């Protein structure tokens, strides 16, 4: 059975406008999947339905054999510990140190008291340092997060998701506010997560070229529906035109803006 199954998923924030409609796909474990599509296509909503950060309206999401939409609070928390999440704006606590932010990823495994008092085991701390070293930001471990650059902060975000020991990592536009160099570092790290640790990655992107070069598979989303689903080498210009709603005769400048 696949790690993640999405069946007839639908979502609407207010009754008239549907953000997602009739989505069906499965994700195998160890896959690197990119979701591309224009702004407002429902990419972020789709990701947040997987760990139920937004409520699921129609259909179901089955993760690791459990139907996410039917879980109670406690079960949902347990499932979320297996799902890492990385955000466009890193979503760290700016006034706390890097190491504290990384250890926040362990809260799902702790009781409330342990978490509030910040009681972490030696093994967890060692794991946190190991991850920071792997991501190349070990020397910043005791710095406050707001002193780091965007790329470094995103690496802290990756460390926070990895310390959860997740089965899947959801990345919501992880490189949208980074420069090309930092973007490459982050994408390389994400790629190595799937290759070395076998963790599934679902990445929302709007850079088609990056999606093509990094991912095994691409899903194209437009107006809440899937318009392309296949291996990345099969994605061609006519598909991107369909995804982004541009015409084939669109001026080259517009196409360039989208493809960059």
């Amino acid at each position, binding site marked *: 059975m696949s790690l993640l199954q999405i069946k007839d998923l639908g979502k609407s924030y207010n009754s008239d406008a549907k953000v997602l409609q009739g989505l069906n796909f499965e994700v195998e474990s160890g896959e690197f999947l990119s979701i591309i599509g224009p702004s407002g296509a429902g990419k972020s909503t789709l990701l947040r339905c997987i760990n139920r950060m937004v409520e699921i309206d129609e259909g179901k999401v089955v993760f690791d054999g459990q139907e996410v939409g039917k879980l109670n609070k406690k079960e949902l928390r347990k499932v979320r510990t297996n799902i890492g*999440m990385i955000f466009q704006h890193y*979503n760290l*606590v*700016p*006034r706390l140190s890097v190491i504290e932010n990384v250890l*926040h990823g362990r*809260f799902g495994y*702790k009781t409330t008291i342990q978490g509030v008092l*910040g009681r972490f085991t030696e093994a967890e701390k060692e794991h946190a340092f190991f991850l920071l070293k792997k991501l190349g930001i070990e020397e910043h471990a005791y710095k406050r997060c707001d002193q780091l650059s965007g790329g470094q902060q995103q690496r802290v975000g990756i460390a926070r998701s990895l310390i959860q020991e997740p089965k899947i990592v959801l990345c919501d536009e992880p490189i949208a506010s980074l420069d090309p160099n930092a973007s490459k570092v982050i994408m390389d790290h994400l790629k190595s997560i799937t290759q070395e640790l076998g963790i599934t990655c679902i990445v929302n992107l709007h850079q088609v070229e990056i999606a093509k070069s990094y991912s095994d598979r691409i899903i194209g989303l437009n107006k809440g529906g899937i318009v392309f689903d296949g291996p990345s080498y099969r994605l061609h210009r006519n598909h991107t035109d369909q995804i982004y709603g541009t015409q084939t005769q669109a001026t080259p400048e517009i196409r360039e803006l989208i493809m960059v």
Partner: protein
Amino acid sequence: MNEKTMKASRKWQTIFFILLIIGMTLASSAITGFNIIHGIATLPKAGAWILSNLMITQESLERLPTILEKLLETILMSIAATTTGTAVAFFLSLMGSKTTGTKKVFGVFARFVASASRNIPVVAWALILLLSFGQNSVTGYLALFVGSVGFLTRAFIESIDEASQSAVEALRATGATYFQIVFKAVVPQCMPQMISWILFMIETNIRNATLVGILTGTGIGYTFDLYYKTLNYNAVALVTFSIIIAVIVIELMSNYIRKVII
């Protein structure tokens, strides 16, 4: 309407409003029997009285130890009222804030408690509580406590709402529990503002404690009242002076603390 008539009408409007204000002032002073000119004329005399009577003399300085003891009591009571008020206000603000609120009922409840305790003046609280608790320090403490809860809840709700939601979202996604999110994502972000508000509340409470003390018969307020009613004006001056010094010192201290933490 051309430019000239507009200017003219504006001029008449101004004159009308000035006359209206003068008329209202005259009417209200006539009704209440208050004479402005007489009031101004007595100012020099009042100043002279203050200078001659409210002087700190050698004799009044002998009372300094008792006054300082009472002053310390007042300061400690203000701090106690603020800290306990902070604890209650913290949980109320968690209920009332949009970021951390869980149920709408709790939010409404928190906001109601906050505005009820804030909008009734501390002096009124002291008088109300006086009826049930009598003239003792508990009454004074409770009056300051209720006022602190009201004000701090309101201030904390705003601090929490202002703090960024993003870290809360991230911790929610890791499977963290409610209080883990509150103490590890919300509190660290609001800490500077919260401490700033708490320090401000301590200052305010020391000022209010004097007034509340006069009514409830505790602390420095009672000392002030006692000397005042026994016509010992020199001691009154000393009490007033020591209150001013204490408030300034506390203010300087809290300004320093604010600078360090932010």
